[in-house]
């Protein structure tokens, strides 16, 4: 029998997920013996035409990372969906929108304005902005159209499985891939390569009393590496975030930022964390409560850093 055909592709992403796969190192070689990699633009030379040439459903499983932020992302997503039996949203961007979906706090014009006008290093007196089409002597050039709102993969095509992580950690990646090689596969829609419990469950730090008297930012202190960061006033998304990452950030004495996404029963990762955090504010009077609430830096960016596109509100008010 022939090896299963697998494909990797990236949409709007930083490329970290690609690195996460390369991180498999020698395992990658063993993998190559078990599967045929039929499409992987980031690592090997493929053209979209190769992909278009493939018959529908001919790929066993495609790992797609990155959010959907422009017409090209969407086009390829649809193409890969057609060509693949199984489509996996690989990495937090594809799953929840990730960092790119913070762009949902503005829109195309806003992004253009800041990138092509406002940044101090930009000098653009002619006010030149990207055009989807431009006529040159050789003919018409086109580039993809940037969207106003960043979407998750499953907001444009049907997705079978999700793998969280920014990026997914090494051993989880190999587990997930081998799962597709050896099976058995969980029911459709499952989140793979992550725990169903929050990071607190695997956190080694000690907890004493759940209360927050003061919000402290990471640059303001060197936290006690043994004690719960929340109790030291550092906003740690751990309580509202899936474990499974091996709590690498916490081991580096840095707080969890929430990249593994919401817990199975949580309606909205940001909302849940906001409630958990404010519930344990150590303040009774309205003034004190106001002070603490005001001292939380950038609530939207803090609580929805990785999940804005998959949140209840999805973007700021248009």
């Amino acid at each position, binding site marked *: 029998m022939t090896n299963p055909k697998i494909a990797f592709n990236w949409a709007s992403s930083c490329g970290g997920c690609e690195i996460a796969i390369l991180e498999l190192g020698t395992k990658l070689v063993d993998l190559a013996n078990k599967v045929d990699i039929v499409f992987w633009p980031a690592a090997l030379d493929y053209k979209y035409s190769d992909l278009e040439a493939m018959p529908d459903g001919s790929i066993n499983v495609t790992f797609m990372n990155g959010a959907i932020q422009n017409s090209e992302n969407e086009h390829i997503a649809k193409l890969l969906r057609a060509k693949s039996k199984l489509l996996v949203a690989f990495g937090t961007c594809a799953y929840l929108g990730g960092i790119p979906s913070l762009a949902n706090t503005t829109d195309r014009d806003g992004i253009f304005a800041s990138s092509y006008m406002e940044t101090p290093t930009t000098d653009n007196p002619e006010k030149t902005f990207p055009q989807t089409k431009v006529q040159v002597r050789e003919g018409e050039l086109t580039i993809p159209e940037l969207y106003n709102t960043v979407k998750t993969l499953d907001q444009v095509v049907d997705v079978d499985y999700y793998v969280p992580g920014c990026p997914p950690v090494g051993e989880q990646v190999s587990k997930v891939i081998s799962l597709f090689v050896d099976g058995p596969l969980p029911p459709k829609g499952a989140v793979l390569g992550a725990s*169903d*419990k*929050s*990071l*607190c*469950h695997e956190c080694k730090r000690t*907890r004493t*009393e*759940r*209360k927050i008297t003061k919000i402290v930012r990471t640059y303001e202190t060197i936290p006690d590496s043994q004690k719960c960061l929340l109790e030291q006033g550092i906003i740690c998304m*751990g*309580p*509202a975030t899936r*474990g499974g990452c091996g709590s690498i950030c916490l081991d580096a004495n840095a707080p969890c930022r929430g990249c593994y996404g919401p*817990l*199975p*029963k*949580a*309606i909205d990762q940001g909302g*849940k*964390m906001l*409630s*958990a955090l404010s*519930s*344990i504010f150590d303040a009774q009077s309205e003034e004190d409560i106001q002070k603490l609430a005001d001292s939380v830096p950038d609530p939207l960016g803090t609580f929805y850093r990785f999940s804005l596109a998959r949140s209840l509100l999805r973007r700021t008010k248009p």
Partner: protein
Amino acid sequence: MKRVGVFVCHCGLNIAGNVNIKEVVEKAGKQQDVVFAVDHKYLCSEPGQTLIKDSIRQHNLDAIVVAACSPAMHEATFKTIAQLSGLNRYNCEIANIREQSSWVHDDPGKATAKAHITVHQGIEKVRLNEPLQPVTVPVTRKVLVIGGGIAGIRAALDVANGGYQVYLVEKSGTIGGRMAQLSETFPTLDCSTCILGPLMVEVFRHPNIKLLRLSKVEEVKGYIGNFKVKVRQEPAYVDEAKCNACGECAKACPAQVPNEFDFGLTWRKAIYTPFAQAVPPAYVLDAKNCLGLLPQACGECKKACDKFGTSCIDLDAWPRIHELEVGAIIVSTGYELYDAAKLTEYGYGTFPDVMTSMEFERMLSASGPTTGEIKRPSDGQTPKEIVFIQCAGQREPETALPYCSKICCMYTARHAMMFRHKVPEGQAYVFYMDIRAGGKGYEEFVKRCQEEKGLLYLRGRVAKVYEENGKLIVKGVDTLSGKTVQINADLVVLAVGMVPSSESHELASKLKASLDANGFFSEAHPKLRPLESPTAGIFLAGAGQSPKDIPETVAQASGAAGKALGLLSSPTLEREPTIAHVVGELCSGCSICVPLCPYDALSLNAEKLAEVSEALCEGCGTCIASCPSGALTLRNLTDEQMVAMIEAIVE
């Protein structure tokens, strides 16, 4: 997949008058899982309840929604009928389409639309309800009575006579309360202390009553049937058992203090007995006014007691904390007087000869400052012209008390009559708004006074009182003749209103019992449950709940005692099972929830996962809102149900 039935009540025209019942029924019938929908004129009536019962059987429903009045009214009734018809009582939901629809919206179309949404909400919720069994808890068969006035005394005696242990907590040095300060009582004019005294003694002697004087409730934990109460008792410095009230200590005491029992019209010593009939019949040392205990400054009382008395004084006594366990609490904290100095138009506090009715009451009393003679505070002369101002600072929503204290018409009539008896040549004027003399023999009594010679009732209010060469000029209006009147009076008596005890707010928050807008304890229902606070297990008696006269107070006290006895009659009681619980496989043990519980019902178990104690949880849901993993849920008010209801509203 449930089979839901919807029952819509007309409530006569209360709902049907403003809501299109037919439309509500039709729309309800179209909702998912609804297999039967019907309306009835009065669902709470016997035929109405039978209709529900029969329909449940016929259409073998396993959940019902009753669209009627507020759940505060008949939720229990409808849940019970559901249960009697073989349903689990928690598969019954109430949709409030009266108080919050038909009664508050003018446009019938809109009221109907809202009623429909309300019913839809109920359907969505009941579809996801799970059958529950009540939580059974034991009952501590003892009662705490707070406040030793006539209400507390009556209630304590009734419970004690019913055979149960009573703790009677009184903040002052004696029981008796306001009634002990009264001279006579209307309408029969019998001497107040003569009828109160024996009851006080009965309390003192009763084997089932433990009297804690100089005591205050410090902390209340637990819930109906199982309250844990901390009571702080200040030391009397006098051994009740030994003291024979000889009074030698007071003779010896050098410290003079204004006597609060006479509203400062007389003096007492720092060691004293509030009044002759005080119970317990023992002296009290008031540490605040003693020349000094720590370090001991004087000690004359102790010397005197050791010399002539029973050497029962211990100046090194300490406060005591009593930890009581009771099943029911009766609140009888009584009333105080509205601060007359706030009524600047009458000049109380500025002019010595303007006094309150209670001060006048003391003056009438044979045990009072003037041993019953009427004299002007300013110069001790007998007043010839006296003005009584009723409703002083009452029925004045803008600036003072919005309500009527109910008893002033009666005692003012009595005061005026007593004045006439004591000063036959005197002339009394009574300014009133209208006479409220509802009660047995009351109207007749007021009539008698009004017919007295030298006693003039003027219907109208007093605008201002001011002093002019030795007289109090009272300017008012007589609305019957339509003329303004001016009276040059020697004495002015203000019938100031009753206000709840100044400590009732603090006590209420300890008891978690709510107060009304005027600071009186609120009852569970103004008509049907006037003896109970909305907080289960807490009963109300006397003027702490609303202004009352003595007969009413006594009646309510006996009623509250009856309620308490009813509660104690069974060794166990059932509690609502709609409480929090943890879905173990979802909990990560982040323990955000643990410190949030006001009842310490949350803890981490052996596997370091959150756990709820069913006996302690009251089901407030604060922990649920904080749970970042959705592992905590409130039985029958889960997030899924909340979302379903939200969608029913916005769709």
